[in-house]
């Protein structure tokens, strides 16, 4: 990186003030100022390689016959390719694994656990942004502050209540818990988005005689679609990939437990059966991966809009 004297742009056109550089000029001067060098490219390539290779290894393992997996490394597959779907067959439908049942559970858990909190959070965010009532600011700060509560703090008392209600070990507890835990962040995000909507728009609707419910559905909802999409992707990934909430409230029964619980269990009890673990891991991650690939744009926007849940 040599120190070249800056291009004397200002001198050429003193009258018009600082001239915008053309694209070509920008790129040319960038080349000088950026960290770009063979080294930079090299480091980037190595990182990308390191980040991809573990997943690739497991993917290849999942399509190799069980005997080969235990006796040779997956990298030998490139010189000695073998292909089988037996691992997937066993992991999905085998009597001792039965991932297909848990796959259904994961879907059944995820859909309401995404729909319910988003709906409720939208309403609450609207109230905090556009309805005037006493104690509103205080209440909003309280909801915001609840974001930091680690889930661990809430699990046992909540479980006790579910047991008292006779709902323990049913889908309801998982749905309700996920919905509750998602609310503070969702309300905070939606509130941020709603505040950005011009006052005049809402006021105009109000002068037209629209009540809050109508304003919410006809004026705000259409503008909030990107925010809702972002949080939907986000919440779906969170719920699908969650282990703690599912383990606590659904237990390990095939009636309710999702894929993550089964996979963690399999890793504990049959930690050396790589033909099952690799295929199982891919069954568990294929759906979030698809959602992620299709919704990446929204997801990234959601991330940038205000932190993440943890």
């Amino acid at each position: 990186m040599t120190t070249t004297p800056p291009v004397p742009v200002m001198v050429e056109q003193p009258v018009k003030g600082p001239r915008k550089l053309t694209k070509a000029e920008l790129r040319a001067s960038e080349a000088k100022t950026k960290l770009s060098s063979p080294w930079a490219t090299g480091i980037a390539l190595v990182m990308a390689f390191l980040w991809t290779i573990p997943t690739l290894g497991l993917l290849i393992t999942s399509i190799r016959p069980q005997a080969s997996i235990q006796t040779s490394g997956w990298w030998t597959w490139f010189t000695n390719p073998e292909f089988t779907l037996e691992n997937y067959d066993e992991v999905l439908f085998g009597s001792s694994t039965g991932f297909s049942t848990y796959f259904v559970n994961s879907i059944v858990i995820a859909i309401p656990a995404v729909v319910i909190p988003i709906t409720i959070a939208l309403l609450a965010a609207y109230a905090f942004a556009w309805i005037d009532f006493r104690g509103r600011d205080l209440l909003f700060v309280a909801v915001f502050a609840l974001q930091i509560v680690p889930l661990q703090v809430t699990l046992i008392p909540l479980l006790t209540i579910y047991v008292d209600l006779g709902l323990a070990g049913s889908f309801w507890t998982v749905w309700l818990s996920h919905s509750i835990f998602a609310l503070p962040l969702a309300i905070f995000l939606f509130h941020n988005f709603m505040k950005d909507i011009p006052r005049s728009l809402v006021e105009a609707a109000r002068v037209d005689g629209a009540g809050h419910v109508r304003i919410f559905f006809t004026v705000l909802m259409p503008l909030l679609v990107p925010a809702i999409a972002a949080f939907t992707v986000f919440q779906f990934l969170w719920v699908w990939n969650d282990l703690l909430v599912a383990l606590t409230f659904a237990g390990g029964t095939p009636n309710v437990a999702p894929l993550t619980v089964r996979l963690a269990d399999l890793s504990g009890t049959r930690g050396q059966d790589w033909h099952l673990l690799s295929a199982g891991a891919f069954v568990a991650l294929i759906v979030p991966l698809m959602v992620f690939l299709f919704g990446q744009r929204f997801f990234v926007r959601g991330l940038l809009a205000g932190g993440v849940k943890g």
Partner: protein
Amino acid sequence: MRGRDLFKVPAPRPNRTQLLGVTQVSSTQTPEHVKKSRSTAPPVSKRPSISVGAVTAGVAMLLVFALVLYLIVASILGAVPESLADIWPDFVVVSQTPVEKFGLMFLAVGLFVAVMAVLLISVDSRKRVPNWTVVLAFIGPTVAMLTLGLLYPMISTFVQSFAGRQPWTDPERREWVGFDNFTTLFTESTFQIVLRNTLVWVLLAPLVALGLGLLYAVLVDRTRGEAVSKGLIFLPMAISMVASGIIWKFVYEYKDASLPQIGLANQVLVWLGLDPYQFILEIPWNTLFLIVVMIWIQTGFAMTVLSAAIKAIPDDIIEAARLDGVTGFGMFRYVTVPSIRPALLVVWVTVTMTTLKAFDIVRTMTGGNFQTSVVANEFYTQSFQQFNFGLGAALAVVLFIIVIPVITYQVRQLRLSEEIR
């Protein structure tokens, strides 16, 4: 994130009479829509009568609050009637076949939509709707759920951390032990190891993820194929920590030196002429190898947020610096980093919090054995495997207490940086 705005909510002050469906202008000149609404209402209404539906909805919401409070109090007193548990028909709590499960799911979503619809329709009446019913309809569900699911449990857990093994809500078996649980945590060697590990996780994972994320964001910024190269790093974000744990456990897989290796890490060692190494078993370095997994997941997140922040740096600043002869690393050090300071902070705090609370990786890879346990994992072990509720609660409280200064720091820094701007 706009830290300062959080505490300063702008207050739109709607004219109350407008909320009631009757605009003030209507007395002098009647707008079109008001005429329409009047055609359905009695023609000479001075004030429309209060909507019965809205008030019913408001009262119903209050009843829900009462129910939540009753549940909490009854749960504390250990006095929830047994019969309450028996009111559910079987299909509500037990579903075995996929048909039953999906049926229950559609029932739940349908029920939810129906309840919300009734609630909203009833407060959208053409008659006069009191403001409190509207407020209740919009934030009532939130307040009820947060009270039941976060506020009460939080307080209960704090109380539990001063009680013994048994739940403090059980009047016959509970015992108060003062600070004994915390003393145990900080003096017994097994728990000291847990705390030490947590400290290493929290210090190391966010910093390395932040560093690597920043490095990568700068390196691939405005290069060819930027989207793809970023996607590769970002992908682990979509993978659950359980699956990530398995992916990496396979990388670390150990076979005796006499056998062919099947784990990549050990194969690399063998290629280098070294002996294979028990990455997951060898104390104390195994904790570091678990942290690698967290870094692998979180670098993508750091990179994405930082990359967006870098792209948002105004061209003027870069141009000005360039005119001053700043190049290469100087640009990075004196322009890029200071400009994205708020983003760096947000990423650091977020990853720290995730790291603190995450127990999936440890649970999947070692189950907390071989001295790798962290607070979040030990909480689970104590609460749900040892059934020592007092100690479990104390661990959860420790987690909570560690989180507070991190958050406070973030909010203060964000407010500072906004004031400067």
